[in-house]
């Protein structure tokens, strides 16, 4: 690569959101979020784009800035993320008007999982403050969103998952770059570059540029220069290690991973153990016994500040699960993100409405919310099923707002 030449990853960064390669679902979700900002009513003030490196998280933000003519205010891992730095560079501009020429702003905090709680003192809190006070969209990116220290951020952000790009998507981009650079190159070669990059488009483009340095054609033989790229261990692999471990010791090995979010792992295991150990009820029951004990240990640990209990919890959820009796022979299972967390986040607003309505109605009936939900509401629902108007009026009479009726009666 000659010194004056721009890195191709920069030179060919997409200029429109639609030009970002692959990840159709993530793009759709992202566009919906951005549109909510454009309409002036953001669903969430910030979005957390997460996924492996080189799958378009940063590019989509650059493309957004270009497309809407917004000023991009960027911080990345090499910045000092002290509170002062964020205050000065980002916050001072997040509420005040934009520099002439721009129609708005977008704030990008790249690789937030790189924040060190010790060195970037207050950085996390400053980010939360920024999100809270910002008048412009804030985008965070991370490779591993399940890092325990990011939990507070997960709660306030729209979570958008970017996946490793498919080989075909990567090849397509490489082809178009070759065409623009006037390079001849076999599809076979591009395919090999893509293969080696394991879905990391940035890596693939960098490799292509390295290989093309100073010549107009690339052959398969040239490929040997490239080193094998290592894949990062994701939650999926951790779950697979535990659920398909041949011995308890194998399962235990995941507890030595440096940034293991054990609470998240517990949810992932609970979600997927049923599928992995089907049809053995003995194995599922044993595994759940271990998981439920791990859960009890964690809650005791937190409540009573008995940190020594952590090791029991970790051992129970890994080795304990792997020691279940009558585990079925290995089979390939596609693991799911914990449905519980998805449901909880999707229904957060609804639950809030429900809670508010139930609280009011319970108070007006002089009963607890629990009594209302289990002893009163079922009767009102029977009435509602036979006479909608009557059911609704009963609830309104109990102080439930008209706009909350549906969420109370829906179940």
């Amino acid at each position: 690569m000659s010194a004056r030449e721009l890195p191709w990853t920069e030179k060919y960064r997409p200029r429109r959101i639609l030009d970002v390669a692959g990840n159709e679902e993530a793009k759709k979700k992202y566009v919906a979020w951005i549109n909510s900002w454009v309409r002036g009513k953001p669903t969430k003030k910030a979005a957390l784009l997460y996924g492996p490196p080189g799958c378009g998280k940063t590019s989509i933000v650059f493309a957004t800035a270009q497309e809407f003519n917004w000023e991009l205010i960027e911080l990345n891992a090499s910045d000092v993320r002290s509170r002062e730095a964020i205050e000065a560079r980002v916050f001072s501009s997040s509420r005040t008007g934009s520099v002439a020429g721009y129609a708005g702003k977008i704030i990008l905090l790249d690789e937030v999982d790189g924040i060190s709680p010790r060195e970037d003192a207050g950085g996390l809190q400053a980010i939360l403050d920024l999100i809270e006070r910002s008048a412009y969209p804030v985008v965070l990116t991370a490779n591993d969103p399940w890092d325990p220290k990011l939990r507070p951020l997960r709660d306030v952000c729209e979570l958008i998952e970017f996946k490793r790009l498919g080989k075909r998507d990567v090849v397509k981009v490489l082809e178009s770059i070759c065409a623009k650079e006037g390079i001849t190159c076999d599809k076979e070669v591009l395919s090999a570059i893509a293969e080696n990059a394991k879905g990391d488009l940035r890596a693939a483009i960098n490799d292509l540029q390295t290989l093309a340095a100073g010549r107009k054609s690339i052959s398969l033989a040239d490929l040997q220069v490239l080193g094998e790229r290592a894949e990062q261990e994701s939650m999926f692999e951790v779950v697979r290690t535990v659920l398909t471990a041949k011995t308890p010791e194998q399962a235990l090995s995941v507890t030595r991973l440096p940034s293991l979010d054990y609470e998240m792992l517990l949810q992932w295991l609970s979600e997927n153990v049923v599928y992995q150990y089907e049809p053995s009820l003995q194995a599922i029951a044993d595994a759940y016994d271990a998981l439920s004990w791990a859960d009890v240990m964690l809650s005791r640990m937190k409540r009573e500040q008995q940190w020594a209990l952590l090791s029991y919890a970790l051992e129970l959820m890994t080795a304990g699960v792997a020691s279940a009796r009558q585990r079925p022979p290995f089979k390939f299972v596609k693991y799911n993100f914990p449905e519980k967390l998805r449901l909880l986040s999707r229904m957060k607003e609804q639950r809030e409405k429900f809670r508010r309505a139930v609280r009011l109605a319970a108070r007006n009936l002089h009963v607890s919310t629990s009594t209302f939900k289990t002893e009163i509401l079922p009767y009102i629902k029977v009435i509602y099923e036979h006479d909608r108007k009557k059911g609704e009026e009963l609830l309104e009479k109990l102080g439930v707002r008209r706009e909350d009726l549906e969420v109370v009666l829906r179940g």
Partner: protein
Amino acid sequence: MSSEIEIWVEKYRPRSLDEIVDQEEIVRRLKEFVRTKSMPHLLFGGPPGTGKTTAALALAHDLYGENWRDNTLELNASDERGIDVIRSRIKDYARTLPIGDVPFKLVILDEADNMTSDAQQALRRTMELFSRNTRFILIANYVSKIIEPIQSRCAVFRFQPLPKGSAIERLRWIAKNEGLEVDEEALEAIWEESQGDLRKAINTLQAASVLSRHVTVDTVYAALGKVRPKEVREMLESAVKGDLVGAREKLRVLLYNYGLSGLDIVRLVHREVLSSKSPLRLDNVTLADLLVLIGETNYRIVEGADDEIQLMALLSKIALLAKSGRS
């Protein structure tokens, strides 16, 4: 009177002590407090639906008249987040003087037996701190779950389930007011199913009345059949069949669509297990096994464990128990 739509337990709740037809001894003593405008702290104990809350509200009404709400703080221990919240709400409220000629304000603390004994100790101190111008009415299903030092500071009133005759009389009176035709056997059935819980009985009557203006035994059972969330039974049925994925789907409907708490669901499972029509009445599974499992789950969830994981652990054990007898 019958034209306005309202939930009947509220519509027909006695407003004044004079309107309470049962619990004569209790009412007589409460009226004495009203007459003398003085009373100690009170503790009302008794099963659900026996009129404890109604008596407390009626007492407030008779003490302070139409403006009783200004002098009454109603709290439900199950819904307030911890004793600190309860204490600070009482503190804020007790700071101001009572309005009118009664020298004290009233705090009604419902479901007080759901408080831990530590919280009750703190409550005891709060009661002492504000006893100059505040009286407490504590309401509990089980008096024995209230700590001794509080019991000893209160006049204890034990509410008995309404005798069958008066309960049916009350239901008949409501039916007449609503212009309903109700078969005598239907009233008997409601009584039978509600086990002396008048709130449940009135709710059942109201739900049945929507199904048909002529309430028969069949309408009563039809209404009751719809009242129990069928997901609880279906969830247990799936588990008994060994279909844990299906059981989990139903569990999630209850938790996330119906907004029930893990504890609510444990209680419903408990009730389901005791019912003679339960899918869990299997030859090879003893009731004792099930009760131990459910009780343990209840304890863990109260302790702060994860609803879904604990309930799934319960369901998978039930699945295993059910299967061990089949094969």
